[in-house]
C-alpha cells in the first residue's frame, strides 16, 4: 500500500554541532540518531560546524489534571517543553526558534509518592525519545539557501 522502509534522511548540511553537554542523555540519543544516517558529521566544537543546534530552553512542568472529591490530586500532566533553533557560527538562522511540547499523564496517590518520583523519571525518558524523533524530522526539512 505504498509504504517503504525509511531510507537515510539526507540532512541539508554536512556537519552539525549539538549544543548539549556530553553528559546529557538527550544529547546522546540525538547524536546517535544523526550518526545513524551516516552522512552528517557531529563536531566537537561549535566553530567547526556548518550549523549549530542551539538549545534555547528545556523545561519541565507538572500541572494538576484531576482531583478526587476530597480535593486531592489523582492525575498530573507532565509537560516537557524544548525550544531550539538552528544557526551557523556567525549567527545566521536556518531554523527559527521552534518549541516542541510533549505531554504525559501520570496517576497519583499520596501513599505511593516515592514510587511516583521514579515513574515520573520514566515518563520523561519516554518523552525524550519522542522528542529526538521530532527534532530529527525538523532538521531534515531545513532550507539552507534562505
Amino acid at each position: 500500500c505504498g509504504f517503504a522502509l525509511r531510507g537515510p534522511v539526507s540532512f541539508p548540511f554536512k556537519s552539525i554541532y549539538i549544543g548539549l553537554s556530553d553528559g546529557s542523555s538527550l544529547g546522546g540519543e540525538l547524536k546517535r540518531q544523526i550518526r545513524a544516517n551516516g552522512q552528517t558529521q557531529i563536531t566537537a566544537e561549535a566553530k567547526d560546524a556548518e550549523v549549530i543546534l542551539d538549545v534555547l530552553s528545556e523545561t519541565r512542568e507538572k500541572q494538576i489534571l484531576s482531583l478526587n472529591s476530597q480535593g486531592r490530586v489523582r492525575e498530573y500532566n507532565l509537560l516537557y517543553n524544548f525550544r531550539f533553533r538552528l544557526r551557523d557560527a556567525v549567527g545566521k538562522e536556518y531554523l527559527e526558534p521552534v518549541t516542541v511540547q510533549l505531554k504525559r499523564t501520570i496517576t497519583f496517590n499520596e501513599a505511593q509518592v516515592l514510587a511516583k518520583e521514579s515513574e515520573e523519571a520514566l515518563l520523561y525518558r519516554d518523552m525524550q525519545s519522542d522528542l529526538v524523533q521530532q527534532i530529527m524530522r525538523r532538521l531534515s526539512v531545513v532550507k539552507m539557501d534562505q
Partner: protein
Amino acid sequence: QAQTTAPQSFEEDLVLRQKNNQTKADDKNAPTTVQSERLWGRPERFIHFENDVEVVKGATTMNADKATYRFLEDEVDAEGKVSLQRNGDCYKGDSARIQLDSSSGNVINPVYKLLRNNAQGKAEKIDFIDEERSLIHQGTYSTCDGLDPDWYLRAETLDLDTGLDKGIAGKSVLYFLGTPILATPSLTFPLSGARHSGFLPPVFGASSKGGAEFALPYYFNIAPNRDLTLYPKVISRRGLQLGAEGRYLGETYRGETSLEGLNNDRVTNTNRYALTSVHQQQLLPELALNWNLNYASDDNYPSDFSNSITKTSQRLLLRDINFTYTGSFWNLNLRASNYQVLQDYAAPIARPYDRLPQLQFHAEQHDVKGFDWSADAMLTRFWHPTQVRGDRLVLNPQVSFPMVEPGYFVVPKVSLHATTYQLSNIVPGQDPNFHRVVPTFSVDSGLVFERQSTLLGKEVTQTLEPRLFYVRTPYREQSAFPNFDSGVADFNFAQIFSENRFTGQDRIGDANQITAALVSRYIEMDGEERLKLALGQRFYFNTQRVTLDNVNSPSRSDLLLAASGKVSPTLSADAALQLNQSTHQSVQASYGIRWQPEVKKILNLSYRLQRDTLKQLDISGQWPIANRWYAVGRSNYSLMDKRVVDGLVGFEYKADCWSLRFLAQRFAVNSTNNNSGFSIQLELNGLARLGIGNNPIEALKRNISGYQPISER
C-alpha cells in the same frame, strides 16, 4: 496605591527596560530652527515671531501663534494655541515657556498625551523639570482616549519621570464612570509596565473560614535582580497575617523564598506559619546545590489560609536538599529528603519514608565501540517513625548494543540488579538481612515504514512503525522484602516498553513477555507531527509471581489504544484507552477535544476514567457572548460522587482602557469541606488591577486550558 501588573520575571523586566531606553533622543547639541511669517526684534537681545511660528530643536517642536526668543536666557515664550511636542509626547495649552538648552519650562492650562502608554489628561500647569521629568499641577491622568474618559485620576500633583519610568501622584481621587471610587494620599504607577517599588492593588475578600479579609501588598524592587513583596493581611476572625516573598538571581545562583505567619490565631489559639524556599546554586563548576523546602505549622494550614487549589490539594510537603557533583560522564548526588504529611483525619495518608540520606552514583557512556553502558549505585537510609527501617544498597549495571539504522533498530540489552538490605526496627525473629541479584535480558526492535499521503487536503508523510519488545527476568522470591519506594507503575506506552512492571527498587518483577505495538504518524512537510495513532499490547508467557503488598499482580495483557493530533487548525483531539482483554471493559480512558476557532474563544471538553477511582467530565471555556462581553467557566464534575469537584463561572467585560471581571469559584479542600469564593476585579489599563477576592486571572489560567486574558491584545 497601585501598580499595573504582578511583578514579571527578572529577564522580561530587563528586556523591557532596554527597549525603553532606546527611544530616548539626545538633543542637547542640536541646532534651533525657527519659522514664522513675521518677525522683529533687537539683535543679541530678543526676536519676536508672529503667525504660524514653529520652533524646532532636536526632538522638541513647538507651534504657536506668537513667540519671543530671548538670547540671554536662551528661552522661548510662546502664547496662543501653543502646541509642544517632546520625544513624541504632545502638550497643548494657552502659553508656554521653554529654556532651550536645559529643556526645562512650563505650559499653562495644558492638555497632554504621552506616547509610551497613551496616557492623557489636562492640568492647570505642567512644569518641565528637565528632559525626563515633568510635574503636573491640579491635573488628571487616564489611559482612555477622548475628552470624557471612563476612568481618570484627579491629583493635586503628578510627578512623571520617563527616565525612572515611574509616575507618582500626590493626594488624589480615582474616578470611574464619573464616580469617585478610591481616594489616596499617594499612588505610584509605572509609565510603561516595568517593575517598580510601590503598593500592589489592595485585595478585599471573604472566606467561610476566615471571615472578611483585607490585604495590602507592598512591592520592593531592591535591584534589577532582587525583589521583595510584603503581604500584610487582616483576617477578621483570626488576626493579622504577615507574609514576605523574596526573589533573587545571580550568575551562579537563583531562588525564591516565602514565609508567612500569624501570631496567635484567635480561632485555634496557636501560632501558625508556613515556609516555602527553592534555591539553586553552582558552588563550583562541577558542584551544584539545590534545595526545595516546604513547611506548614499544622495539618490545616493550607486549607485554612490558601484560596488556591494548587495549594490546598497538596497534602505532602517536600523537604529536599541535595548536592550534585558532575564529572565527565558520571555524577554523584547526595540528598536528604522527606515529606511532611498534612493529615486529613477523615481520609488518612500513609507517611512516606524519609531518605536520610541517599547517595547516588550514575555513569553512562554512549557509543563505546558500538556499546552503550550505564551504571547506577544507590545507597539509601530509609527512616520511618513506626515501620521497618533499613539501609539499602542497589547496584544496577546495564550494557546494550544498539543497532540503529534509519529504517529499523534492534537493541539487545543485559542488566543486573543487585540489592542488599540491612533492616532495623523489626519484629523480633524477623531476618534483618536480605539480598537479591536479578539479571534481565531484553531486546527492543522496530521498523519504520513511510509513504507520502494526504490528510484533509494537505500533503503529509505517513509512517508505520511496528515495534516488538521482549523481556526475560527470572523469578526471585522477594515477598518478605520491605517496600520503601516501590509501586505498580501505570500501564501506558512508556511502561510497556520498560523492563520492570514496578517502579522503585524494592520489587523486580519476573518477566517472560513480549510487547507488540504499532504507531502511525502523520507528519507535515515542515516536520511537525500532525496526528499520532498508537496501539499496543503485552503478551505474557509466564504467570507473574512477584507481588507488592501481597496483592497479586493481575496477569493482564490489556490493550492500549491512543490517538492524538490536530484534526484541523482549530480543532485538536486526543483519546487514550486501556482495555481489559478478558472482561472487555475499559480500565482507564480519557478523551478530550479542544476547539479554538479564534483568539480568546476556546472550548475544552474531556472525559477521564480510572476504573473504581475516578470518573470525571470536565468542561471549560472562554467565549464571547455579546459585544465586549466574555463568559468564562469550568466544571469538573465527578460522575462517581455526583458532585462538582472544581467549578468556576464568570463574566468579563472589556472596554478600550479598562476591563472588569466577576468570578465565582468552588472547590473541594478535604473530604468534608468545600471552599467557595467570589471575586470582582477592575483593571485600569496602565494604572492598576483593583479587586475584591483573589487574583482571578491566576484562577482562570489554571482552570481553563488555553485561556487568554482579555486585556492583552
